[in-house]
């Protein structure tokens, strides 16, 4: 049905949406979509973990740890993500040893997708650390003191009292940053990771339907972001603090 419609569209109007009727292009496109989703999922998780880790160290007693986190955050926030990605992929990746893949060829230890995930997680993690820190600052110190007086250790009060509140407060900001992360995954194109943009560019350079693919691509990304925003806003509503209006 869909395939025949788009074949008809191509024949009648010359609008060539090959991904909807050509099985090969469709498979490529879907594979690219899956790669993008995979990079998104892994780096969202990793960046949130990194942000939590950063905020834990930044609030700790060790001066060196605090300074390290500050430097990490400031450096990754104030340099272009594309240059970071290039640095990791070309410079750091070039230093790592290669391993045999069993068929005689040498493959790098961490591939393009791996480096994309690492670089994007570090990039978004820097922003997340700052977002969590702002959230934690919004929790009154009396709350922490009360927890302390009840014998909570720092870790316990963090996990049971501070973070549950702070997390709810900073969810909108976190939401924004994760949307940004999804959009930043397109940078992986620059190091040849076969994600959605890369797949689309392969298709349009072979089938010569730049205009159509470009629009499909835009809609695909807007949909991807919309799904994330929808999920996050549902979560936000489910977790909202009753009576708290920011």
């Amino acid at each position: 049905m869909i395939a025949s419609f788009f074949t008809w569209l191509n024949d009648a109007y010359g609008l060539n949406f090959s991904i909807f009727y050509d099985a090969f292009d469709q498979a490529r496109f879907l594979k690219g979509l899956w790669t993008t989703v995979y990079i998104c999922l892994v780096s969202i998780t990793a960046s949130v973990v990194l942000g939590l880790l950063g905020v834990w160290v930044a609030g700790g007693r060790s001066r060196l740890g605090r300074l390290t986190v500050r430097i990490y955050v400031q450096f990754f926030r104030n340099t272009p993500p594309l240059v970071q990605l290039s640095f990791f992929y070309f410079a750091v990746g070039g230093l790592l040893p290669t391993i045999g893949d069993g068929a005689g060829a040498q493959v790098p230890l961490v591939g393009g997708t791996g480096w994309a995930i690492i670089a994007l997680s570090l990039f978004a993690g820097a922003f997340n650390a700052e977002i969590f820190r702002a959230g934690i600052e919004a929790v009154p110190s009396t709350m922490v003191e009360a927890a302390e007086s009840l014998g909570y250790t720092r870790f316990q009060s963090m996990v049971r009292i501070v973070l549950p509140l702070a997390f709810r407060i900073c969810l909108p900001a976190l939401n924004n940053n994760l949307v940004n992360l999804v959009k930043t995954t397109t940078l992986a194109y620059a190091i040849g990771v076969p994600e959605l943009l890369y797949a689309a560019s392969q298709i349009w350079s072979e089938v010569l339907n730049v205009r159509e693919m470009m629009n499909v691509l835009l809609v695909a990304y807007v949909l991807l972001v919309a799904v994330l925003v929808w999920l996050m806003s549902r979560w936000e509503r489910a977790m909202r603090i009753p009576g708290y209006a920011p």
Partner: protein
Amino acid sequence: MSDSRPVHILQGCGVTCATTDLPVLKPFRAPPIAPSGLAAPVVIGGAALTCVALLFGASLAHAQLGAATGRDGALAILLRWAPLIFQGFLFNILISFLAMALGTVVGVVAGIAQVSLAAPVRKSAWALTQFFRNAPWLVLLFYAMFLLPFEFRVLGLTIAFPAWVKAIIGLALPVAANVSEIVRGGITSIPSGQWESAESLAFSRRQTMWMIILPQAVKRMIPPWMNLYAILTMATTLISVVGIQDGLSITRGALIAESRPDLMIPMYLLLLMMFFAYCYPIARATLALERRFSVRA
């Protein structure tokens, strides 16, 4: 080790529950750029640069010492290319200025349209803003690069449309959408009392907007606008992906020309440091302005 089960403190707190003026939750000072835990921002910036410079120096020294005899030293090669890389970086800055100017002009119009009284104008401006805000920058850049013509013919006059102009337009699209949101946010953050009192003084809507609302809102828009500028500056490296010679592509070209893998880390770090030295002061200034203009309740 004490028992750490949660204790129900409020149980037994009956009708005579004492009120407290302690805050239940403090205000959430949202990033983009929130104050740092340490007092001296200069120290952080300096320390970050020093750390990277140390790494840079170490990798450079390693390359210098490890170089085979009879070839140029790593330092000599780096000095040879550094001016060109810096030139490329300046081109990035130029692009960011132009894209920001174009994006701001379009964005302000779109932002004002977003609070228009005419529903079709408001809704279409909202839809456009959301669309361009949520599309990835790189995809929009591709969009502009591939779908804009390379020359225009107007009345027999041929206007060339070089790649870098198209890149500016491609970068200005998301900037305009973000500026539009900033303007809308700034305007709606002005208390409605201002509108009402202007109305009671017989200001027309246009007069109210230009003489009362916007002058107050601009102050609140400047910090997020500067933050957007820093983001745009970092995003200008995207133009290297679509084949324009900027700082990143020159760096990459230099590395290919010299074919010295040991120089990769110092070269990329050099470029990273250039961007950091440019963007970090902007981030600090944004924060300082944000604090200064923050609305006192």
